[in-house]
């Protein structure tokens, strides 16, 4: 925190009011941003849960059908099952 002496009198009071208003605006801005981050976190969490569920279902279905994922990329048929 930096303190600056601005003297006394009406001009100093006006400056003090301006500084207080700026501080309040910054505080409100930080609060809005915190709220936005929290909203975004909740939304992203909902999507991540859904996305992970779909991926898990896809993996289970393909593995059950005899496929395996090659190096976390392409899905391939297990050896010897290509023509079955």
């Amino acid at each position: 925190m930096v303190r600056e002496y601005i003297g006394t009198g009406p001009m100093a009071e006006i400056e003090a009011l301006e500084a207080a208003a700026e501080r309040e605006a910054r505080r409100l801005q930080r609060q809005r941003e915190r709220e936005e981050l929290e909203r975004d976190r909740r939304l992203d969490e909902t999507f991540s849960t859904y996305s992970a569920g779909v991926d898990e279902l896809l993996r289970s279905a393909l593995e059950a059908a005899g496929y395996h994922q090659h190096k976390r990329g392409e899905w391939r048929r297990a050896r010897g099952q290509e023509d079955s």
Partner: protein
Amino acid sequence: MGKKIPDVNTTNGRREIMKRAELGDTSVVPALRTMLREDDDELLDAGHLARMALARAASKEGDLLTREIYIRQMEKDAEELAGPNPSPLEKMLAEKVAISRFRCYYYESLSVLQLGQGTLQIDDHRHKRLARANRDFLAACKALAQVRKLELPFVQLNVAEKQQVQNLIVPGGPA
């Protein structure tokens, strides 16, 4: 007692439903959903919560019409991406692509509209979030393309009088 729900089959009724939804009247939501789904097929609804959360975030608080339109838009995109006679797996992946695409559009518009309005920290957060959404979208597209490329064995199931062709076989599962 609440107000009477207008008839979805008349033009005036549909208008009134939309008007009331815009004003935040929750009692018209079932009618609004019926209206927006002319022919509601049996959808594999794994993405309901994600769709709902995104649509709610993207629309103004209390504006149910916009929210429901966004939800319907994602459903419609998923139907189009899935194409005719999709397998359950394709349907599920198409749904994920549609939701991920909407998520990208939404984050992108947020980034553009709010550019330079926040601190560097929040700008960075929005940028990273958009990049993550784009990566998720591309991964979802890739998964759908891969499943389409694989020649999964087909099986025909007859449920009631409907014939369904599916390509999800679980060995050892019920016949």
